[in-house]
């Protein structure tokens, strides 16, 4: 096609837009991992003894573990001794008390990413916790949230101001022994967000954390803990970006959600870590453990994720449906283009009676991208009348990419109702020609078809995020047709 050369040129000109580096003085500890490093991190954060003990326990356990090899992903071995486990932008002796004291360069960084933190430009209706490398640099709307009793702050701050809550719930959903990356995170996690919604409170605004990796050779290991007490509701958004770098960087986060009786947590992610270049050089390894526990009766946890970035994605946001009548949902769009790999899906563990779960997974592969859906639905012995609906759709663009589906189903109670649907489709030449014949370019055609394909997931996202997600998808797939 004669438009091919033009398209190629356009792609070359349109890079990963969040790929800039902020030139800021950072306090970085030496690379490598040892008990001393774990102690150093804990000391830098001024942590209580119990937390240091927990870290050390995790570290010692981690030494006995091996990297998982079951995922459908391939990468050279990671040298854990060459990673820097703590890097923080330098600031005065004391942490900034207000935004006025935050380094303007940091505020600029977030502004460039479309996340204004300054008072007058704050995003209406969204409270943001901004995490830069290993530390949280600012949290907006804190006071307003405190008025209704919602605690929203950085993890380090929570350890200081609400140690009883952190101690009670930390590791209660993802134990420190859980898996290789979660255990590593438990040893070296540096910061993250903490959110507590008290009984009967409907959080009046969207809460959001924006993760940014800036420093080179640095891993980001943040930890998020969200607790919704009886009858509480919270909607939480997460966004992530990183600069363009030639080497791979590790991001191993842990997210724990706890929903008590009749509580509801909605967790949405738009993941746009640097995916590497078209030959697969550089990019983030996103090895993340996300799990929610529906502890209470009739509680509900929904995960919605749009995964466009990262060189490799390895994550399975899951729900443990312990309370009777609890509900778990997982809506996912995962895109792999160029040399990206994704092995993602969910686990729905039904323990309580009448528990219900819904899984809608949409995988899009282009270029040499490899996209794997891996899901487990487990109906326990006591889970009377549990129900699951799973739908896994794959869309292929071109002949060099791949889509794989591994649904695991374990049913130990015969009253369970399970439904599984799967489809694989390919954007055909004849479809693209139909669009072109009506005046629509092939690129726009792909984006319209893809957006149509993802509609069911996008409608689960909060409005602003849905628009953002659509745009991101367009950029991620640019150049996937010639």
């Amino acid at each position: 096609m004669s438009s091919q050369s033009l398209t190629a040129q356009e792609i070359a000109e349109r890079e990963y837009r969040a790929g800039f580096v902020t030139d800021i003085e950072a306090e970085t500890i030496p690379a490598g991992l040892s008990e001393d490093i774990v102690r150093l991190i804990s000391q830098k954060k001024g942590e209580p003894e119990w937390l240091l003990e927990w870290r050390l326990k995790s570290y010692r356990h981690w030494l006995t573990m091996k990297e998982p090899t079951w995922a459908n992903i391939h990468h050279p071995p990671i040298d854990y001794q060459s990673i820097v486990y703590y890097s923080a932008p330098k600031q005065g002796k004391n942490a900034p008390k207000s935004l006025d004291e935050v380094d303007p360069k940091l505020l600029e960084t977030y502004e460039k990413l479309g996340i204004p933190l300054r008072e007058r430009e704050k995003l209406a209706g969204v409270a943001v916790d901004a995490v830069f490398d290993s530390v949280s640099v600012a949290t907006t709307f804190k006071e307003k949230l405190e008025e209704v009793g919602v605690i929203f702050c950085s993890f380090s701050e929570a350890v200081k101001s609400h140690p009883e809550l952190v101690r009670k719930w930390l590791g209660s959903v993802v134990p420190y022994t859980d898996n290789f990356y979660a255990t590593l995170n438990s040893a070296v996690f540096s910061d993250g967000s903490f959110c507590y919604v008290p009984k009967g409170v409907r959080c009046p605004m969207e809460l959001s954390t924006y993760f940014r990796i800036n420093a080179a050779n640095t891993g980001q290991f943040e930890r998020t803990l969200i607790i919704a007490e009886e009858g509480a509701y919270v909607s939480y958004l997460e966004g992530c970006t990183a600069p363009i770098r030639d080497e791979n960087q590790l991001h191993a986060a842990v997210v724990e959600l706890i929903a008590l009786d009749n509580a509801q947590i909605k967790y949405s992610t738009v993941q746009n870590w640097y995916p590497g270049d078209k030959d697969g050089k550089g990019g983030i390894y996103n090895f993340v453990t996300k799990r929610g526990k529906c502890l209470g009766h009739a509680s509900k946890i929904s995960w919605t994720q749009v995964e466009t970035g990262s060189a490799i994605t390895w994550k399975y946001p899951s729900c443990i449906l312990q309370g009777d009548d609890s509900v778990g949902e997982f809506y996912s769009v995962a895109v792999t283009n160029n040399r990206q790999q994704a092995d993602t899906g969910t686990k729905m563990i039904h323990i309580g009676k009448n528990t219900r779960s819904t899984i809608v997974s949409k995988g899009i592969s282009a270029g040499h991208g490899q996209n794997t859906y891996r899901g487990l639905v487990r109906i326990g012995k006591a889970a009377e009348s549990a129900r699951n609906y799973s739908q896994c759709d794959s869309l292929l663009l071109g002949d060099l990419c791949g889509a794989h589906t591994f649904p695991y189903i374990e049913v130990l109670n015969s009253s369970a109702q399970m439904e599984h649907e799967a489809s694989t489709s390919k954007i055909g030449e004849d479809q693209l020609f139909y669009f072109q014949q009506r005046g629509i370019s092939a690129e726009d055609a792909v984006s319209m078809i893809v957006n149509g394909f993802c509609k069911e997931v996008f409608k689960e996202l909060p409005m602003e995020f849905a628009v953002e997600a659509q745009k991101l998808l367009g950029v991620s797939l640019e150049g996937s047709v010639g």
Partner: protein
Amino acid sequence: MLEIKNLHVSVNGREILRGVDLSVKAGEVHAIMGPNGSGKSTLAHVIAGRPGYEVTAGSVRYEGRDLLAMPPEERAREGVFLAFQYPVEIPGVSNVYFLKAALNAIRKHRGQSELDAMDFLALVKEKAKLVDIDEALVRRPVNEGFSGGEKKRNEIFQMAILDPRLAVLDETDSGLDIDALKVVAGGVNQLRSPQRAMVLVTHYQRLLDYIVPDFVHVLLDGRIVKSGDKELARELESRGYEWLEAPAAADRR
């Protein structure tokens, strides 16, 4: 408006069109008739720019420009419309959304402002009447689950919205019962205008009872072997294509 000279086209190395000449002026309606495999659809697709057809000789000029040098979307934006014989289904993309994107791409190309949602819906309402298309159909994904007749109606409906200068209708009558044919033909007739040219590609004379052409051409073995007015179509109806076939076949040997 459209000037085709000595057009030779191959598909996978096999020559399908073997020297087609055709001249179409604004306001005219031309019918291209011929038996299966004579190259009618190939001609329609080459005009629209479908990939997979290799032009080995000849030229196609549209409004004085080299049509073959333009990518398909540019041809569409310049006013070339193809009503497909087999319109594809596009799951997940609604007909209205699709058409709005198409119309605005064309308007943008013409230097016109994009139509907003309100104006666009008014246009949809007006044109839906033309081919008696159910408005529910307009909101469904493009062609998905449409019957054969609904798909054909949808093509003419799209044509009415996009307002092309040159419309090529590829076997628009195939798969239509007589009532549906009348509706579709009625729609096409209303779209006839002194500014617009139409090329009807058809196997049967039936369509031409309802859309009366100014010129009829017989395409046989990749060449136009005879041209005339609407009377030629009637003659073909009664005599078939055999009487024209002999010299063409002989010529080939």
